[in-house]
Structure formats: structure tokens, C-alpha cells
């Protein structure tokens, strides 16, 4: 509008409207308005990834690329003269291959590099008279990694009561001249019965043992004074029940081995050896709780503790993460060392959190599973034996057994695959016999039976010698350890055995 002016005087702030002289007065209205958005909501939050992983990628160097566009008209540069060389030799090689396939020249031709042994014989019967007088039984045996020393643990298997009986671990060196079967080279006195034993896989002087009281001890046979290198002692970490299995497993650091112990309290614990302090320090633990066992068939609800007591354990030589557990109630479980689920056990003052390792459950047996062993020739096969007198051949991939063999009418306490013949395994029975089965044979009867001459007393454990393939050590309830020399038939691998084993493993149980 004409004449409208807005004037800002110096002192005042804000728009000011000058009122014009009368003739030009115009009414002007000024309004002051403000506006703003609705209140802006802000919040502070932090995030952090739970799992970190480092990863790198890189392209492959040029010549490894699959899709490499060939330069126009040229072949990929190759070793000079290779084409001509192959041209020269091809006909000759193909002719030889064809005639070799048809040839009968070598039929029935066998070479004897080593002495053929037709018979199976017991070459040593090792005893410790003072242990035998006390009526102690051999509960576990182990060969050293060199194959020359056998150690045996004395204790009791049939005694259900809490035992405070003193026992011992004896070792004999079979390669020493002047071996006296009645006098062990070394006797380690132990305050409690020893239930399980295991030599270190690379250091021939270390032996790990599991006691009836739940303790785990590592002895060093090189020492002169106190042979105990490390022990768990009776702390809140130890097992409260007998330790039925000890083994050495690779530890987190390269070259380090830790002791694994499993007991009837349902705990599988891993201990690192602290030789300075003389202690076994708990580094990881697993607890097997019945409610956390995956089952594919209804398991009867037993009254009693919810712990799954472990009576046997087997490590897989193919997959360092897998281990198998056999329980007192007949369960056979496939477990993993890297399982992350927490165990549903009430914390009992242990220094590490226990995890639940069970991943898969195989069809349950009718009684405690005394022994499990994974096949050294096939990654999916394992054999299990128990009090029902049967040996079940299982594949890791399915719950039902592939094959069921009747080993004996009484209990079967131990089973081991042969380290040289893929189709052979040996089982120790409660009647004092070791039955050796050959899966390549058509009949299901044993290929050989070794009578331990214990007068019908059970055989509790057996182990093949890791270095000398023809030796088998057997531990008996009468306190003796028999060393058997097997025949060539039982130790020499036949042609196509691995293929036959593969075929067996691929059969699907009906």
C-alpha cells in the first residue's frame, strides 16, 4: 500500500509500525507468530555385535581363474613339449594298462616279506602278585605311544560301595630283556582304586588316571621321587562319582594336550596340566542332563537323578569336535566339544560354566554301555557293546544300528577295532573270552576266540598295540594282563577291505 513504511528505530527491537500522519493513516496490524515442529523425540542407545569374526577376501591370482578369457586365437601357454611327450608315450602306456587289466600273470602270487604267523598265542601273562592277593581286578590298560610299555590299573568293577581300598598302577616294558612277568618294572601306589588309564599320545612318560573317588591324576614315570605330576585333588571342580574314562585330547593351543575325564556323575570335564603347581585346572566342562538329551524315541522316565552317568566315551579320530558317550542307562549320544547350550544343572561351585554337549541320540540299549570305539578306517562307523551281550555297529548318520552281533550270553565289557584290518574288531566278554569278529566273512560267528584262562572270570578291557600290529593286550578280573600275538590272518589287511567297509556303512538299516 502506498505510503506504508516499516521503520526500525534503533533502540527498539521488533517490527514497529510508524503511525503515519492523519492523512495517510493506515491501520496496520502486526501479529507476532511463531511456529515450531512437534517435540522431536530423541533417545540414546548403544549397540555392539555379540559375535565378531575377522574375514578377508582376495581375488585369485590370474592363472587360477576358472573363467579366463583366452586371448584371441591363442591357447593358454603350457609347459613346452608336454604335448609332444604325451603323444610319444600315450600309446605305450595305454597298451600296458590294457594288457595289465587282462593279465593273469600275477594271479595267486603272494610275497612274504614278514614271517607268516599261522597261530594266535599268548606270549606273556603279566601279574602283580600283591595286587592279586588283595583280589584287585584289572580295570583298565593302556599302551604307551612307543608301543613298548603296557600300563595297567587295578581296582574293582563289581564293587558298588564307596571304596577306600589302596590300589596301584603297574607298568611293564615288553621290549626290555629280562622281562619278568611277575614283577612289574614300575608300581605306582594309589590311595584309591583306579578305574581308567590313558598314556599321553606323544610323551611316553605321562599317564593320566581316573580314580574311584572322582579325582583325576597325571603321573610322570620319569620322576624318581613323587610321581604325581598333577592332580585335581578334592575340590569343588572334581567329579563326585567314579571316573570311568580318561583320555588326552588336543587343547586350544597347538601342541598342547588336555585331559578329558568322564564319570558316572554325568560330567565330562577338560583339565589343563599345570605342572608347576602340580594341579589339574578345569578349563571346560560338560554336564549331561536327562532332560537335555535329544531323543527320537520315548525314553522311559526313570526315577533317580537327572544326571546321565557316563560309563564309556569314544573320541572320533576323524573329527576332533565329535565325541561319543555311552551311559549307565543304555543311551548312546553323539556330542560336540563346541556345543554352546548351557547345561541345566544347578551350579555347584564349579569354576567354569557347564555346557550341554549332546546333539544326537542313537537307539538306546537295554543296559549300561560299557565300551564304544570309533572305526579308524571309516569316519561314520563305530561299534558299541554293553550288558545285553550284543555288539552294535552304528553309523553316525542314523539312530538305528547297521548290524547287531551276538558276542556272548553274558555282559560284554570292552570292544576295540583293529588298527590294521578295517573289518576286524575284538570284544571282551564276561565269560573270560575275547571274541574277534571279521565283518568280511559271511557268517556272524567269531573269526577267533581267545580264552583268557581265568576260570570264567570276566575280561574287563583290551587294547591293540599302536605300533606293533600283532599284539593285543587283555586285562582280566583275576588281576592278570595277557599279551597275545595274533596270526597274520587277523592282522594283514586283505584287498578291498576298505571298499567292503564303505559298502557296509552305506547300507540303510531297515
Amino acid at each position, binding site marked *: 500500500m502506498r505510503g506504508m513504511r516499516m521503520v526500525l528505530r534503533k533502540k527498539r527491537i521488533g517490527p514497529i509500525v510508524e503511525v503515519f500522519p492523519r492523512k495517510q493513516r493506515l491501520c496496520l496490524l502486526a501479529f507476532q507468530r511463531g511456529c515450531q515442529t512437534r517435540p522431536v523425540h530423541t533417545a540414546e542407545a548403544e549397540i555392539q555385535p555379540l559375535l565378531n569374526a575377522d574375514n578377508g577376501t582376495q581375488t585369485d591370482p590370474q592363472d587360477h581363474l576358472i*573363467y579366463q*578369457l*583366452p586371448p584371441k586365437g591363442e*591357447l*593358454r601357454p*603350457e*609347459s613346452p*613339449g*608336454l*604335448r609332444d*611327450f*604325451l*603323444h*610319444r*608315450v*600315450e600309446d*605305450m*602306456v*595305454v597298451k*600296458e*594298462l*590294457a594288457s*595289465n*587289466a587282462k*593279465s593273469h600273470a*600275477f594271479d595267486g602270487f603272494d*610275497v612274504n616279506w614278514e614271517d607268516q604267523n599261522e597261530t594266535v598265542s599268548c606270549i606273556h601273562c603279566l601279574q602283580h602278585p600283591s595286587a592279586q592277593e588283595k583280589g584287585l581286578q584289572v580295570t583298565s590298560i593302556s599302551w604307551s605311544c612307543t608301543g613298548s610299555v603296557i600300563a595297567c590299573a587295578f581296582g574293582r568293577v563289581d564293587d558298588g560301595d564307596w571304596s577306600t581300598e589302596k590300589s596301584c598302577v603297574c607298568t611293564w616294558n615288553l621290549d626290555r630283556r629280562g622281562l619278568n612277568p611277575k614283577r612289574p618294572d614300575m608300581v605306582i601306589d594309589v590311595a584309591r582304586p583306579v578305574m581308567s588309564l590313558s598314556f599321553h599320545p606323544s610323551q611316553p612318560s605321562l599317564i593320566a588316571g581316573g580314580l574311584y573317588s572322582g579325582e583325576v591324576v597325571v603321573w610322570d614315570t620319569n620322576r624318581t621321587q613323587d610321581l604325581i605330576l598333577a592332580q585335581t585333588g578334592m575340590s569343588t571342580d572334581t567329579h563326585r562319582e567314579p571316573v570311568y574314562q580318561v583320555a588326552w585330547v588336543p587343547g586350544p593351543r597347538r601342541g598342547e594336550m588336555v585331559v578329558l575325564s568322564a564319570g558316572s556323575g554325568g560330567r565330562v570335564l577338560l583339565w589343563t596340566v599345570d605342572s608347576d603347581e602340580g594341579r589339574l585346572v578345569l578349563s571346560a566342562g560338560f554336564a549331561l542332563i536327562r532332560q537335555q538329551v535329544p531323543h527320537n524315541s520315548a525314553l522311559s522316565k526313570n526315577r533317580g537323578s537327572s544326571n546321565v552317568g557316563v560309563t564309556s566315551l569314544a573320541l572320533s579320530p576323524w573329527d576332533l569336535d565329535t565325541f561319543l558317550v555311552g551311559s549307565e542307562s543304555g543311551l548312546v549320544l553323539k556330542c560336540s566339544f563346541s556345543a554352546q547350550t548351557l547345561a541345566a544343572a544347578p551350579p555347584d561351585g564349579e569354576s567354569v560354566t557347564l555346557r550341554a554337549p549332546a546333539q544326537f541320540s542313537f537307539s538306546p540299549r537295554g543296559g549300561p554301555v560299557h565300551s564304544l570305539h570309533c572305526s579308524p578306517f571309516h569316519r561314520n562307523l563305530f561299534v558299541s557293546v554293553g550288558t545285553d551281550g550284543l555288539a552294535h555297529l552304528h553309523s553316525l548318520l542314523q539312530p538305528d544300528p547297521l548290524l547287531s552281533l551276538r558276542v556272548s550270553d553274558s555282559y560284554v565289557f570292552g570292544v576295540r577295532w583293529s588298527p590294521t584290518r578295517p573289518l576286524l574288531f575284538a570284544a571282551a566278554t564276561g565269560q573270560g573270552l575275547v571274541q574277534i569278529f571279521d565283518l568280511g566273512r559271511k557268517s556272524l560267528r567269531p573269526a577267533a576266540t581267545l580264552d583268557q584262562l581265568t576260570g570264567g572270570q570276566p575280561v574287563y578291557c583290551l587294547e591293540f598295540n599302536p605300533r606293533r600290529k600283532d599284539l593285543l593286550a587283555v586285562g582280566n578280573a583275576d588281576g592278570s594282563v595277557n599279551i597275545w600275538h595274533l596270526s597274520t590272518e587277523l592282522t594283514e589287511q586283505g*584287498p578291498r577291505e576298505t571298499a567292503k567297509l564303505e559298502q557296509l556303512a552305506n547300507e540303510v538299516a531297515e
Partner: protein
Amino acid sequence: IATFLGRKLQPRPQNEVEETLKRIQGQKGVQGIIIVNAEGIPIKTTLDNSSTVQYAGLIHQLVMKARSTVRDIDPQNDLTFLRVRSKKNEIMIAPDKDYFLIVIQNPSD
């Protein structure tokens, strides 16, 4: 149709070397083929890495020993073929100045 970055690839010209190896591999019972150069380094193989390296190293030494044995007996003679028969299979080696061809066959397969 194989494409890479949207462009159609020409099929790689099948080269004679591959063809020859395929023909040999197709013979009855052949378990593996390795071609080793004069220094004992494997340049082509149908087996896994660790077996290849093992075979290449051991067989190279054996061929050298066999060749020197033949030439020591008669300097005018030379090794043309070597066969090592074992319980489980047979290894055939065709030696040459620059390369060896190693074929592992199980005749009863």
C-alpha cells in the same frame, strides 16, 4: 550357457593334453595320473594335493635310481618303462628327458 560379466564365453579349446589324459584315465582300473617335470615337480594331476606331492617326490628318486642301474649295467642301454607292482595296485612310469608320466592302476578293479 556360461557367462562372465554378462559376456558369453567361448568354450575353452579342448586341448590335446587334456584329451590324452582323459583317454588314459578311462582305461580300466586307473586310479590316478600324475605328470612330473624333470625337477620332480608335479605339473598335472588327477589326485589330491598331498598324495600327488608324496608320489612325485618318491617316484622321481626311484626312477633316477632305476635309470642309473640300467645304465651302469650297460652304458648303451637306457630305461624305457618302470612298473612297480604292490599288493594293492600297480604304478606305471613312462620316463622321458623332460617329463615323467605316472599312472596308478588297480588291475582287479
